[in-house]
Structures are given as structure tokens and as C-alpha cells.
């Protein structure tokens, strides 16, 4: 068992180093919910390490002290038991568990308190195979894949699903809740710091379950307000570029894409693409490169099997270029 002892300090090391990516790890909390959960994890870990140390100490002592020596044939005393000892090792665990149970119950209730407050905002999150839709009822907009939230604001999240069960997890900000078809679950998060926090689906939902990533992007309140306002601008009221490529791209988009992908913050069958130009990944996981965008349009099933988008193999290379340029131009924050 010796190597176990060598692994044990390793656990501390890993923990202290806060390993993993800062915006992904539950061990490096970036908001009050995740902090609450991390403090509970730490508390339970300390108690458990105490238990492990006690048990291992007795264990090692017993194995060394009472091992059979060569030539030893004595018959040990046949002990039946010991009442006092048995009471002790029943009582101490109960006490230790109480130390853990009380704050746990309190925090379970704190986390479940999703009453909206005066300055809180609400986001309705609908999970689809294999992408995420974020509806902001107060702003009348729908966004896909990237969930923008204002910093230092309590965000109430209502979770739904359009097909199978998914689960909404942004480890650095909060633990998960399931997106259950037919039910609505709720939770809340808050991000004090600006930043991009990675989120993942954690409930097996089909072949591309592992690719069902999303981002929570926390920005200053005024930036968020701008974002929300620009998201809501109807497509026809947006300033249109005169560039030839973009006009062609736009035409193609309206012919082939608009049925499913809104560009005025209204959602649709597929993810809303109003701010596609501000994404940092394609399809939730691919590098944001022209080639990837084009590959996706040509044959989305090869990249994310089981998703709902049909393939468009008939676009010419030029058309794809135009469409890609146009998609990249869809922005709501910059300029």
C-alpha cells in the first residue's frame, strides 16, 4: 500500500495548484455559487482526510505490529468485541457527519432560492441536441451558444429541454442542474468578474454529447445592455454593408439559412446567429477558422453526428466564401 501514501500528498498538491483551466475548474471558483460549493467541498475533504488518516494509521500499525513472524505459531486470543470501542466509533462518525450535514442543508436551500430580485435578470436556457439556446425574456431576445450576462448581477436561470435530458454545467460559476423535457428547473449564478466561463452538457444525450459545449460570457452591465439592445435590432433595420461579397453572402443566407437561424435575436429551429461574428468557436468546439465554418456548412453530421442541421454539399467554393464572410460580419458589440 506504500504508493498510496505517495499519492496522498499529490492530492493536496493538485488541489493547491488549482489545476485545470481557470475558467473551467470547479476547484477555482469565479462566483459566489461555485465558491459556496467549493467551500463545502473543502470542508468535506478535510473531514474525509481526517478519517482516512485515522484509519490508515491504525491499519499500518496493525499490519506491521501483528504480522506473522517466521516460526510464530501462537493462537491469538479470541476476542468477541468491545462495547466501549463500538460506541465510540459509532458516535464520532455521527458527529463528523453533522458538521457536514448542517451547512449542506443550509446551502442546499440557499442555492434553491431563485426568487427574482429587483436588479436580477432572468435567462431561459433551452438545451437542444447538441446546442444551447438562451432566451432573455426581459429583453425579448434569444441568443445561441454564448450566454452573455452582466457582472455582479444575480442571474436567474430557468432550464428546459426540447428533446432529451441535458444538464447545464459551468463549473467555475456553479454546479449543474438538469434540463428535463416537460419540466422547468431553476438555479442562479453570479459572476463578479468579467470573463469567459466554459460550460458543458453533463448528461449523456447522444453521440455528440461530448461536443455540447457553451460559454458564459460576463461583461460589464453597460456592455451587456448594449449587447442586448443590438441583439434585438431586426435584420432589416441593421446597417448593411455594400461590399459585393457580403451582399452575395447575405442573399445566400436568406435563401438557405434564415428559415432555421435568426439574425435578429429571435432564435428559431437552429441556434441564433445574430452575433456569430463574435463567437470564438464554430459549432461549440471547432477553432474559429474559415475552413471550419465551410466544413460545417458542407457536412455538419461528420463534425457533430446526430445534430439537427442538414448538409449543404451543393454550395460552390465561392458561395461558401461569401457565406462565411457574411457570417463573420454578424456582430452586435464591436464597431
Amino acid at each position: 500500500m506504500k504508493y498510496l501514501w505517495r499519492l496522498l500528498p499529490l492530492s493536496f498538491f493538485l488541489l493547491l495548484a488549482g489545476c485545470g483551466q481557470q475558467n473551467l475548474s470547479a476547484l477555482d471558483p469565479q462566483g459566489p455559487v461555485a465558491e459556496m460549493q467549493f467551500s463545502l467541498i473543502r470542508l468535506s475533504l478535510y473531514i474525509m482526510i481526517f478519517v482516512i488518516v485515522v484509519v490508515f494509521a491504525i491499519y499500518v500499525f496493525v499490519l506491521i505490529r501483528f504480522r506473522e513472524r517466521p516460526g510464530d505459531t501462537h493462537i491469538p486470543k479470541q476476542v468477541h468485541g468491545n462495547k466501549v470501542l463500538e460506541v465510540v466509533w459509532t458516535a464520532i462518525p455521527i458527529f463528523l457527519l453533522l458538521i457536514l450535514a448542517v451547512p449542506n442543508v443550509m446551502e442546499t436551500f440557499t442555492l434553491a432560492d431563485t426568487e427574482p430580485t429587483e436588479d436580477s435578470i432572468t435567462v431561459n436556457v433551452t438545451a437542444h441536441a447538441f446546442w444551447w439556446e438562451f432566451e432573455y425574456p426581459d429583453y425579448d431576445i434569444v441568443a445561441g451558444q454564448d450566454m452573455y450576462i452582466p457582472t455582479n448581477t444575480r442571474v436567474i436561470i430557468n432550464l428546459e429541454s426540447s428533446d432529451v435530458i441535458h444538464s447545464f454545467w459551468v463549473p467555475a460559476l456553479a454546479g449543474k442542474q438538469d434540463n428535463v423535457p416537460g419540466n422547468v428547473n431553476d438555479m442562479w449564478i453570479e459572476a463578479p468578474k468579467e470573463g469567459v466561463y466554459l460550460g458543458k452538457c453533463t448528461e449523456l444525450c447522444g453521440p455528440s454529447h461530448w461536443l455540447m459545449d457553451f460559454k458564459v460570457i460576463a461583461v460589464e452591465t453597460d456592455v451587456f445592455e448594449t449587447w442586448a439592445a443590438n441583439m434585438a435590432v431586426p435584420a432589416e433595420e441593421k446597417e448593411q454593408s455594400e461590399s459585393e461579397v457580403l451582399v452575395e453572402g447575405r442573399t445566400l443566407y436568406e435563401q438557405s439559412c434564415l428559415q432555421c437561424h435568426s439574425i435578429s435575436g429571435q432564435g428559431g429551429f437552429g441556434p441564433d446567429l445574430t452575433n456569430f461574428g463574435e463567437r470564438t468557436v464554430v459549432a461549440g468546439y471547432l477553432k474559429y477558422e474559415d475552413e471550419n465554418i465551410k466544413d460545417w456548412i458542407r457536412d455538419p453530421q461528420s463534425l457533430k453526428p446526430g445534430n439537427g442541421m442538414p448538409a449543404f454539399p451543393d454550395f460552390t467554393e465561392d458561395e461558401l466564401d461569401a457565406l462565411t464572410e457574411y457570417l463573420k460580419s454578424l456582430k452586435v458589440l464591436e464597431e
Partner: protein
Amino acid sequence: MSHAKAQSKSVLWDWLTTVDHKKVGILYLAAGAFFFALGGLEAILMRIQLMFPEFTFLPAQTFNELLTMHGTTMIFLAAMPLLFGLMNYIVPLQIGARDVAFPFLNALGFWLFLFGGILLNVSWFAGGAPDAGWTAYVPLSSESPGTGIDYYVLGLQISGAGTLIGGINFLVTIINMRAPGMSMMRMPLFTWSTFVASMLILFAFPALTIGLLLLMLERIFGATYFAVDFGGNVIIWQHLFWIFGHPEVYILVLPAFGIFSEIISTFSKKRLFGYSAMVFATLIIGFLGFMVWAHHMFTVGMGPVANSIFAVATMAIAVPTGIKIFNWLLTLWGGRIQFTTANLFALGFIPSFVMGGVTGVMLATSAANYQFHDTYFVVAHFHYVIIGGVVLGLFAGAFYWWPRIFGYKLNETLGKIFFWMFLFGFHLTFFVQHFLGLIGMPRRVASFLGGQGLDEMNLISTIGAFFMGVAFILFVVNIFVSMKNKETTGDPWDGRTLEWTIPSPTPEYNFAQTPLVRDVDALWYEKYEGDGKMKAAEPLGDIHMPNGSFLPFIISLGLFIASFGFIYHLWALAIAGMVVVFGAMFVRSVKEDHGYHIPKEDILNAKGGK
């Protein structure tokens, strides 16, 4: 004698028709070992796929099928049957019985399990295995295209029926068939844990039966329990599954606890410390096992009151489990500990399981569970419990009882190399997975993206899995190279309990004379308080034995055939299969079979003409 023992029957026919609990036990062990190897292979394939980020060794769909089949196989077709094998062989011997209560049903239980297991694996060759995880959450499972889930539903239904039958058989055997003097509170711990595990089977499996029935009706006959569009609710499945699924964990681990209790006591040459507390703790764990299932569902939105209740109830299980750990330690305390391979596994179990146990308490913390749930932290936890508890227990039991069951001792040196390699590989594989989960790796992912800090630990984990795989091959080699080490004493370990009082190989009637039990550890008592031999509770006489029967095989085959009818909507085939089933049941019901007697003279001859 109308049903004379046919001397000329072939070996194959003998095994197909046997109702001898020892042979049924060996059948369980053989089939379980096969499925264990299969499940292990599936695990290795998955670990290869997860060796590097975005590795393309396997398509995602295949990966989902593998993860489903790995879990299902390991739980239903490997761990439980292997335990059933040991229980079948050992429990009647430990209580001084000649047989189990229902030899026919016992055989039926085995064949149902085997045909169920085969059916499940036929799916690989019939357009794809089930792909919704071993938990088969609806609506992913109810709407899954293809026939994979249909195979899952019917395969588990059939093998589950076998398990239920086995459970009832053990319960009645233990209650009604104990030798004189073997009161409940003198039963060895393995028998006790078999008893409690069988109670859990009895009450847990019906929930699974109903869950599977509903899923089958939903998929094949268009029922709408889970169809949200028709007012259905998808959480119902999760409740039914976990009302079964959580006790299932204890069905697996309690018998393993029993095995460790026997082995630790034997090899520290001490009576089990706190016997009655151990029994009591086993019962409490069994009871609590039924009251905590919803801790698998903290994130489905039951609400804070429900979550808190289930969280606290779950934490409570740590108390009786702790009692057990300390009792084992105190059994070792003051003993003369022999480091045989069997005992090494038992000693390796204690720290491994403690680590699995403490992460269990961490997971029970509902508010923190929102972070742990469905991540690799959970994967690490339950593998620590199931490998650190159940699999180590199975290997410990294998090395311990091998001479009893197969008449030869496994090689100790090879065994010890196997132990260290397996244990090292096990911790290497799963220890890092705790951290993988905490830094953001969900479970059941077919791959992971690079650059998120997950690469190194996944590679380490895979290397660990290879160690376990190689170690298992070493065990298989051991089985074959050790065959020459015949064991003839019947008591190779200086045993304490009744299974070591009979000659090796075990006669088919087990005990020539039913023994009289005078204390816990009946044999040990006679060794140090008596003359070293069990007192007989009855005069030597003819021994009644049940006749073999081919009907269990036929019934199971009928269900196997009918299943294809259900899966492919070939109703004639389904009906034909059911006709076979009910026909065989009918034959069994109208044809009285009173078994046969082994004459006293044969028994005397076998005893060496005494």
C-alpha cells in the same frame, strides 16, 4: 427406483441439466468470468479512446454503446453472477446443508441469467448495442433508434428474473436449511451478507422489472408514460431505476463485505471482532440502501427539502460502514496476520474502499453534488467502491475458496504479483479521475478537447487500465498453471467455518452426516474446544437428492426466442417462444419428481469404509 441416477449421461448433458448447487455455482462463476473479461475489454477500448484528446480510435456512437455495455455487463452479467457463484457453492456448505431450498429454481435462475446475458450481447451483431448508458435514462433510451435498447430491456428483464429467483432461493435456504445448532446469530458473515443481499434483491428487482416493462411497452407498443407530448414524465424512469439501482450497489458490496469478514478472520487467526455489531451493521446498510436512491437525482429538480432529506439519509450510511471498517481493523489487531494472496486482497480492500466511501459522503453533500454529479468524480467514486470493494472481494474469495470449489490451490507467487499489479493499476486508473471530474470533465464523453488541462491525467488513467488488463491475464494464467497443485486435506487455510469440514473434492451430498453446530466459527470451536471433528447431528443414512432437469434450460431458451419476436415485432415468434416457456412450466407443474436416494453404503465407501 424409477428415477435411477443415470450413469451413462454425457458430461455436457450433466451440466445442462444439473440442479446441484455446486455445479450451478461453477456455471455462474464460469459465465460470470467470461462476461467479466468481456466487460473489461470494453473498458480497455474506452480507455484507449480517451488516451489522447480528440482521439479517433472509436466513433462516438460506438463509444456510447461500449460505455452502456460495459456498465450493464459488469453489474448484471459479471459482478452479480460471480457473487452468485460463490454464494451458490459456499452458503449451503457454510450452514451445513446438503442442498439449496429450490434446486430446480436455482438452475432456472442461472439459465435465465445466461440467456439474458447472451441476448444483451447479441445486440452487437444486430445493428448496434444499447447506447443510452447502463441507466438508460428516458427519453434518450425510449426514443433511441434501432434495436439496441430493445435488447437491453429484454436481456435485463430475463436475467433480472433469474436474479430474483436466485435471491428467493438463498433466503429460503438460509432460513430453512441450517444444520442443527446453526442459529441465525451463529451464521458466518458471508452467509449473513448473502441473506441481506438476497432481501435487497427481492425488494429492489421488482422496481427494475416494472421500469423495464414500462420502457418495453413504450418502445414496442407505443405507451406514453415517458412521452412528454402525451403528458408523460421522464423522471418516473429515474425513480424506478434508482429504487432498484441504489440497493443494487449494496447487493454487490455486502456479499463482498462478507467475503472479507471470513478471510480477515481466518488469516488473522481470530474470531471476527464485534460479530453482532457486524450483523447489525449489515442489516442497517441494507435498510438504508432503500431510503437514499434519490441522491442519484439531486440535479433533476426535486427541490431543496427532498434533496436535504436524501442527503442526510445518505450520509447516515457512512456510520454502519465505518463500524464495519473498524471491526475489521480490530479483528486484525492482536492477531497473527498471514499475508496469503486472499488476505492481501482483503487488506488491499480496506484502504481502497475507505477512499471510495469518503468520496461517497462527499457526493452525498447535495449542494456540492451539483458540482460532482455526472463528472469523472462520480466515475472515480463508484469504481473505487465497486472495484475496491466488489472486485477485490471477488478475487479474495476466488483465492480463498478455489481449493474448496476446484480442488486445487492457486499459485501464491503468481497470485501476489497479480494482486500488486491489479491494485497499482486500479489506483493509477481511478485516483486521477477524481480530479478530472473536478476540473471539468463530464462522464460518458466519447472524447475531450485538448488544451483544457485534461490530457495528462487521461493518459495516466489509460496506462493504469492496461496494468489491470495485464494483471487479469496473469490471473487466468494462474488458473491453468496451478491445476497440478491438488489440494486433498479439505482444510488448506486452517479454516473456521463448516465449508472446511468436508473432504476435497466436495462430495455431491456435501455432508455425509449433517453436522451439529456449537458456536460461531463451528469448526474452529471443535478444533480448540472439541476433538477437531464436527459432531454429527444425525445417524448415517440414505441421502435424498433431487433429479436433474433440462426444463430450466428450455424455459430460458423459450424466453430467449420470444425476445426476438418482441424486438422485431414478429408476433408468431414471440407466441411460439412463450408457448415453449409455459409448456415447460406446465410440464414441471404436472410431472412430480421426487428425486432419488444415495444409499448409505455408497456414502460409507466414499468416507473410506469407516
